[in-house]
């Protein structure tokens, strides 16, 4: 494989504190080095990134992948590493780095510990709650010496009930069964208490409310090794999106009143939240031809996550970290950065149109905007 020089771009690499105009030289599937603009080897192939941002390949902590279409969506959204949730059907692909979350409980039944393969990126029960505190405690115990992160979907089903929208004026108004914040916050509190006792590593997925991020903020302040993520949907949509029973609001966990959205954005800004995770689910259209509450929840967010998050207008380094080193370090993965010798996973975006232009995996261009 010949060398590739990415020219004319602006490099952001949060792990290494890089924020500068620079060319980037790749060879043999790895990052060789940053190169002063115009100083790269003449022999290298060139990829013009003028007026574009050159970023580490994006890392997604949570996506439910059915087939190759989801992989294409991930690449078009700039993702080079994806952690497939345990209910994913896709097991392997050559196109990007596909990692797997091992089932925290057998068949996600919430009853017995699931088997942990040597390659598991983390333990996760998908979007199914682990109701029994004793079982969650045991999972934390078991995972600790394996150095595997336990990924939590925080939901108490006795509080969530048949709910489909966060509790508030909109749910009352539309007559939609509502989910109180305590359905999430009580489980975050429970699992933090278990974690504080047992140790190891814990990560909270797709948090939706103020109370949860407050607990995480406190835990971090006390030095606990906790991390958490939030989805692009919960950062940019409140329960108002459900007006008219719009299915744009049919996601799980549910959307909430707008002050929670603001609390999540604040938590991004003060680094309480480590990552933006897509929570990508491609729901079959036939499962969306029902009234709101009967539709299968979920949104195919891999292709749009970056663009959606860009609209938040966070400082560039902070936003890039949330898609790269943030999620990678939450799971202890050696990706999401452009250190010399690192795998040449690079995402090139246009800061004006918010679009991903190129996605490179191991030095190979796997996605080019405008190409089918």
């Amino acid at each position, binding site marked *: 494989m010949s060398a590739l020089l990415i020219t004319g771009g602006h490099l952001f690499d949060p792990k290494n504190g890089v924020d500068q105009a620079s060319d980037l030289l790749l060879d043999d599937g790895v990052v060789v080095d940053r190169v002063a603009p115009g100083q790269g080897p003449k022999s290298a192939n060139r990829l013009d990134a003028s007026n574009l941002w050159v970023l580490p390949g994006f890392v997604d902590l949570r996506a439910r992948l059915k087939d190759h279409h989801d992989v294409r969506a991930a690449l078009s959204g700039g993702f080079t590493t994806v952690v497939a949730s345990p209910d994913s059907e896709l097991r392997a692909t050559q196109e990007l780095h596909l990692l797997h979350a091992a089932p925290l409980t057998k068949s996600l039944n919430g009853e017995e510990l699931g088997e942990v393969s040597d390659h598991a990126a983390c333990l996760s029960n998908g979007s199914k709650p682990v109701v029994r505190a004793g079982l969650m405690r045991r999972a934390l115990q078991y995972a600790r010496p394996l150095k595997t992160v336990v990924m939590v979907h925080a939901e108490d089903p006795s509080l969530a009930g*048949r709910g489909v929208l966060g509790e*508030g004026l909109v749910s009352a108004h539309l*007559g939609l069964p509502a989910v109180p914040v305590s359905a999430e916050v009580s489980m975050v509190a429970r699992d933090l208490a278990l974690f504080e006792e047992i140790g190891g590593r814990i990560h909270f997925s797709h948090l939706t409310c103020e109370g949860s991020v407050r607990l995480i903020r406190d835990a971090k302040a006390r030095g606990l090794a906790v991390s958490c993520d939030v989805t692009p949907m919960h950062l940019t949509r409140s329960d108002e999106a459900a007006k008219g029973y719009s299915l744009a609001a049919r996601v799980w966990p549910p959307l909430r009143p707008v002050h929670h959205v603001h609390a999540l954005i604040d938590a991004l800004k003060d680094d309480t939240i480590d990552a933006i995770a897509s929570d990508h689910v491609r729901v079959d259209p036939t499962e969306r*031809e*029902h009234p709101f509450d009967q539709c299968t929840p979920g949104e195919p967010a891999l292709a749009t996550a970056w663009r959606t998050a860009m609209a938040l207008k966070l400082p560039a380094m902070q936003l890039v970290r949330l898609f790269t080193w943030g999620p990678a370090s939450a799971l202890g993965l050696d990706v999401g950065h452009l250190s010399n010798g690192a795998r040449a996973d690079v995402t090139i975006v246009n800061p004006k149109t918010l679009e991903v232009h190129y996605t490179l995996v191991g030095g190979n261009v796997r996605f080019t905007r405008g190409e089918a």
Partner: protein
Amino acid sequence: MAHLLAIEGMPRQKIDALLTRASEFREGRATERRLSGKVVANLFYEPSTRTRSSFEIAAAALGAHVLNWTVQGSSASKGESLIDTVRNLAAMGPAVMVVRHPSSGAAQLVAQSVRCAVINAGDGQHEHPSQGLLDAFTLKRRWGSLEGKKVAIVGDVLHSRVARSNLYCLATLGAKVTLCGPATLLPTELSALGAFVTYDLDHALADADAVMMLRVQRERQSEAMFPSEREYHRRWGLTVDRAARLKQGALVLHPGPVNRGLELAPEVADGLASVILEQVENGVAVRKAILEGVA
């Protein structure tokens, strides 16, 4: 296409026009059969006796053919989506579809999926507009005007589409609405929709001109929302004693079917203050006006 999906947002003028037309039907001054030769399809995903029958009688009186399409259980469980079902039904050419469904928003989804007129006959916990209109009609017929009148709506407000439709309808017509029930069945958010909210029934009844007792929706409660029926009756039931303390001439309404002895003592349901059968009777006239209006 005209639909009747919700009372919320309906201008006062339109409500008044419907009630006026209903009055003409009720007093026998209107006898036109404007739905002659048309088909009205009743699509009911939930059991219903009075609403379905009421629409059926109203439609027949207007000259329409009535097609009753009853679905046991949810469409999803049978593998056919709601959208698919209503498109099939619509292909048979009805002028009006009357829809009841256990999911909030179902009638709106139907209206977005077909080209005929759609009447919401109750969607989940959202609205039941024809009930709201017939309740307002019943009160207006008794009082002449609802302006400044105080109406207490009591009971399972959380699960009640009747409460929401009534709240919007009564408030638009100038009445003051108090919502009352156990805290587990009374979302406080509803105060933002213009109602006074209290958990104390005697407080709610003190100066009420009418009291609407809601049906305890046992079928919508996956878990008990209050300790016992005995306690419910004691705290939020319209007992004989409470009914005796109502303001002189105050009316008692219930959308039916009544859980006798639970939300309403049998003596009160059948008593002089009760207008429950009038509500049923008026329902036909109001539904004639609604059907005529959308068809």
